[in-house]
């Protein structure tokens, strides 16, 4: 008889969870993704309104109670960042799929909705491997440095009026200090891997950081000069009439470009550059260490567009329909405005990622030093001048 036992019906039929051939049920896709958005929104409301209200109700609003409340908010934000990462990874894959005339994840969950959860589980189950040539401690610490510094930006981001962990009056300086640290994580991770490609990636990360940090700081400065404050809440408050994007157009453009560089996003993804350096700084990482680099990247992909919205697009401002600012309903509405504006910017970033090829690292440096810094200085002078005239 035949050597292979051939089943009657060879066309194997796999029944997967919620398999959907894509074209037939687009509403399902939209429903699943809106669930993510609702989850995100509820998380925001629970973190900034729910937790304080809970502690208020319990009467623990002073002394240690305050510390515990803040700690609980941080834990909530960590969960929120996980939700954001799951959402954005799925959004990236689905959007790239749509743009590239394919479907993206389809099989796990309705319309591929929980594919990223499975991916995260897979990464959890993988061996976390440290190469023999690597410096153990630095290699282990680098993903944590990257993630923590990305995550720390959350502290000053206002989701609605008063909905922020710390509306510090040196918020901008804090931002510069913290966001620069994430490049250090990349640098240390690449340099400690004991791999030449990772080392080149780390060198590129360092060179890139030197080139975009200066215009970034100058942009922050012009925003501070124009708004008259370094507190992010006050910067948003100052945009009640007209959004900063109109008076501060030059700094806005420069900020978008620097954000792309800070994100290591496609026109400027030199440290990673998979077609040149294979995977750059994270070539030796696996398992959860790799997942933390990934998580940091996607948390930043949310936070940097969020900062664009805070600085230039009026933050959480929007029509309140007579609601009293400061109430729960107004806060929820404001955070919704903020989220929608951020989502638009995330989409633009993904769109850029889908379109553009990679720049060259020395060209970015040249661009930064020869074009962006003079322009940023110009923007700063203009901002100061306009401030003198109009305010």
């Amino acid at each position, binding site marked *: 008889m035949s050597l292979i036992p051939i089943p009657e019906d060879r066309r194997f039929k796999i029944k997967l969870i919620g398999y959907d051939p894509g074209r037939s049920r687009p509403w399902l896709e939209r429903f699943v993704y809106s669930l993510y958005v609702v989850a995100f929104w509820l998380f925001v409301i629970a973190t900034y309104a729910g937790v304080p209200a809970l502690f208020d109700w319990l009467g623990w609003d002073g002394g240690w109670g305050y510390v515990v409340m803040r700690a609980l908010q941080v834990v909530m934000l960590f969960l929120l960042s996980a939700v954001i990462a799951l959402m954005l990874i799925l959004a990236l894959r689905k959007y790239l799929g749509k743009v590239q*005339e394919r479907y993206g994840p389809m099989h796990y969950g309705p319309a591929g909705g929980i594919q990223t959860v499975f991916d995260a589980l897979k990464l959890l189950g993988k061996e976390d491997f440290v190469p023999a040539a690597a410096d153990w401690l630095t290699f282990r610490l680098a993903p944590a440095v990257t993630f923590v510094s990305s995550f720390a930006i959350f502290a000053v981001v206002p989701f609605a009026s008063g909905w922020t962990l710390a509306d510090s009056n040196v918020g901008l300086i804090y931002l510069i200090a913290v966001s620069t640290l994430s490049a250090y994580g990349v640098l240390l991770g690449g340099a400690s891997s004991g791999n030449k490609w990772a080392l*080149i990636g780390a060198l590129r990360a360092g060179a890139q950081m030197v080139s975009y940090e200066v215009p970034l700081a100058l942009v922050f400065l012009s925003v501070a000069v124009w708004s008259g404050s370094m507190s992010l809440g006050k910067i948003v408050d100052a945009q009640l009439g007209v959004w900063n994007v109109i008076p501060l157009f030059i700094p806005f453009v420069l900020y978008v470009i620097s954000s792309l560089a800070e994100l290591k996003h*496609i026109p400027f993804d030199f440290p990673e*550059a998979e077609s040149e350096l294979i995977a750059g700084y994270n070539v030796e990482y696996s398992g959860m260490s790799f997942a933390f680099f990934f998580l940091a990247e996607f948390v930043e992909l949310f936070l940097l567009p969020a900062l664009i919205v805070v600085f230039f697009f009026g933050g959480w401002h929007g029509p309140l329909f007579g609601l009293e600012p400061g109430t729960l309903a107004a806060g929820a509405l404001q955070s919704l405005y903020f989220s929608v504006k951020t989502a638009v910017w995330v989409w633009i970033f993904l769109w850029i990622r889908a379109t553009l090829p990679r720049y060259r690292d020395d060209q970015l440096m040249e661009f930064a030093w020869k074009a962006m810094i003079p322009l940023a200085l110009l923007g700063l002078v203009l901002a100061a001048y306009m401030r003198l005239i109009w305010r």
Partner: protein
Amino acid sequence: MSSTIGLEPVLGRSDEMIVNMGPQHPATHGVLRVVIGLEGERITRAVPHIGYLHRNHEKIEESRTYFQVVPFTDRMDYVSGTQNELPVVLAVEDLAGIEVPERAKMIRTMFFELFRIASHLVWMGTAMLDLGAITPFLYTFWDREIILGIVERTAGARMLPNYYTFGGVRRDLHPHFFKDVAEFLDHLEKRMPDYEHLVLENPIVHARTVGVGVLSKERAVARGVSGPVLRASGVAYDVRKAFPYDAYPEVEFEIPTSDAGDTYARFWVRFQEIYQSVKILRQLLEKTPKTGPFKGRAPARLKISGERYRAVENSRGELGVYVVGDGGDKPYRIKHRGAAFSNLQVIPDLFIGAKFSDAIAILSSLDPVFGEIDR
């Protein structure tokens, strides 16, 4: 084997880092290994190594009959399918004196140009992938898929069809072939502006490729490069015009050349070649008779003596073959002259002094296919 053959560390140069690019590297289009000396991002030395896909086709083909040689040649430049079969077929036809009907010549030429478009589409996608843009890769592969579908309907296989034979082609065209090709050409002409927007007009592509990896005219000729790489350096050498074969004397087309010789010029020339192929295909669609002989009279057992070098212009340049027959039904010796094989020799010329990122762009503009280089 030492890991740095041909590139030993120089004493007293502690600032040079020696990197193995390949054989497993996303930008080497297969199994090229280039040992690179890096000074920061600048390449100081580069030594290419090939042979990781070597199968010694030439020895195997000595023990096969002429008819059995043809499917083996398919496996050389696997991106451009039937183009590899043609030099062997032409050389053997010359030696055996086999007449080819006009219609068969036209069918061959149509397949040849279809595969040129397919190969250039693959190049476009992979080159943009090397430059960091993911999306054009998917677009070009979808369009190439249409070509492969057309080929499959007639020839039975998609990439390696084994379609040409001595005296013509193996099968007659599928009834819908003319309609399919005409539809595809319309579709491609609609798509080409998209590709121009994404590749040629993109300012980042400009920044990455203009003035990068300049190959001078004299150097290009002396290095024996051919195809788009040679024409981008300003030499209007095209085997289709220089030593015409098949139906090329009957169609009108131009040889696009550029004097710049840089990576961008090589990109540009390939784009223009797609337009020229479309032009050729449109002419052939009109000229080719709908019915008629597709195969000439060829003996069932070919016995050949003599030697013959025949070359065709495939997607990468001059693909030649040197066939020696000793009067038996098996070739005494077959030597393949791979186009990408010769083109790849310019790696040290172009790499040294360039940035590492430039090296990736230059390599993608050379468009190597390792099945043909290593054979």
